């Protein structure tokens, strides 16, 4: 089989928008919704996921020739769990307050289907350099999505962003937004917006193409 031509820049950029893990592939939803009730929590969680994804992609990609196919999934899970434990204890030591708020959701990074999905679909097949670029792009896209959702929910739900008040005293917090239903509704609306932008962009490109043919 001929090796697919790889372009490092493309592998990096695709995760941010075109194949964004959250908005397009709808992976890793559980932590996505559970911890985005404030922008700060979203960032801590996003960075932890970033670390785990990049580190395990690097590890698995470098070990790809030694991992037997039959036991690969279990091995991936054990490698991911090791890095998650590292991240968990690091956050506990450096940011105890954030660790308390995120609670059980840091260990749950292990079962984030986005991470296992990237190992299976990409890191285990391609050279280390591209695997790391792909992981950075995907994790960046995830962080971007977390931040978008966390900011919207915090601004509407408490009227602050990173604990800095944005509105005057007259602002009545929309409490539902920081409660579970707000997570579902906000992500639903963001997805809707994403679909709309993608559709409009497609239409625009098509229009340009037909105009060019006319000339």
């Amino acid at each position, binding site marked *: 089989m001929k090796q697919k031509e790889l372009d490092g820049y493309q592998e990096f950029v695709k995760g941010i928008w075109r194949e964004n893990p959250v908005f397009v592939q709808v992976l890793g939803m559980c932590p996505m919704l559970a911890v985005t009730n404030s922008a700060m929590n979203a960032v801590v969680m996003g960075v932890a996921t970033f670390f785990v994804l990049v580190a395990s992609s690097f590890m698995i990609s470098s070990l790809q020739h030694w991992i037997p196919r039959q036991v690969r999934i279990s091995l991936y899970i054990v490698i991911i769990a090791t890095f998650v434990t590292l991240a968990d*204890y690091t956050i506990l030591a450096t940011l105890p307050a954030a660790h308390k708020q995120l609670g*059980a959701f840091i260990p749950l990074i292990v079962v984030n289907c986005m991470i*296992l999905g990237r190992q299976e679909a990409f890191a285990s097949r391609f050279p280390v350099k591209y695997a790391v670029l792909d992981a950075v792009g995907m994790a960046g896209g995830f962080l971007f999505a977390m931040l978008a959702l966390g900011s919207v929910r915090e601004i509407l739900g408490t009227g602050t962003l990173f604990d800095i008040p944005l509105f005057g005293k007259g602002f009545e917090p929309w409490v539902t937004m920081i409660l579970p*239903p707000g997570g579902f509704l906000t992500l639903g609306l963001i*997805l*809707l917006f994403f*679909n*709309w932008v993608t559709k409009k962009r497609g239409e625009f490109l098509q229009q340009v193409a037909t105009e060019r043919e006319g000339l």
Partner: protein
Amino acid sequence: MDNLIWIFVSALLVNNFVLAYFLGLCPFLGVSGRLETSLRLGMATTFVMVITAICAWFLNTYVLIHAPYLRLISFIVVIASTVQFIEMAIKKLSPALFKALGIYLPLITTNCAILGLAIFATNRGYGFLEGLTFALGAGAGFTLALILMAGIREEIEKTKDVPDLVQGTAMNLIVAGILSMAFMGFAGLFSAG
């Protein structure tokens, strides 16, 4: 006894795993298209949850007090092997049920509700009976949410009024949001009494 009932009802309704804790969303959004499959998946998940709760209790009591940093790795290994074991057992004992569950059985491993259950039970320091009740309640709650969602989605499909842009995950999420809002009503169940 009161305590056990409280744990069960809390996991079933007030702190529903799917609608309040956002655990197990992948199967919730992925498999909730048909009523029948969601019921089966719910039952299989409940079963794995109960086994996991028992194993987690044993691990916590006898092994992990000596090495707490191994918690995550040992839990995930236990869950993966339990699912594998149950798969083999069901295949041997009841091929019909095995066929009916199909691909959903191995996929239970990556359901975050299971690992979440083990971690929550540990963090709250539940004993054996409490852990078991918690697992039953959480499993029943997961099944309930899945069935409700499947019912709504089947009805929506019949209307054919949904615009193309909204169809798929966006609509499912908004429906889930409304369901979750309805479940918030249960929060008053205990504070009033």
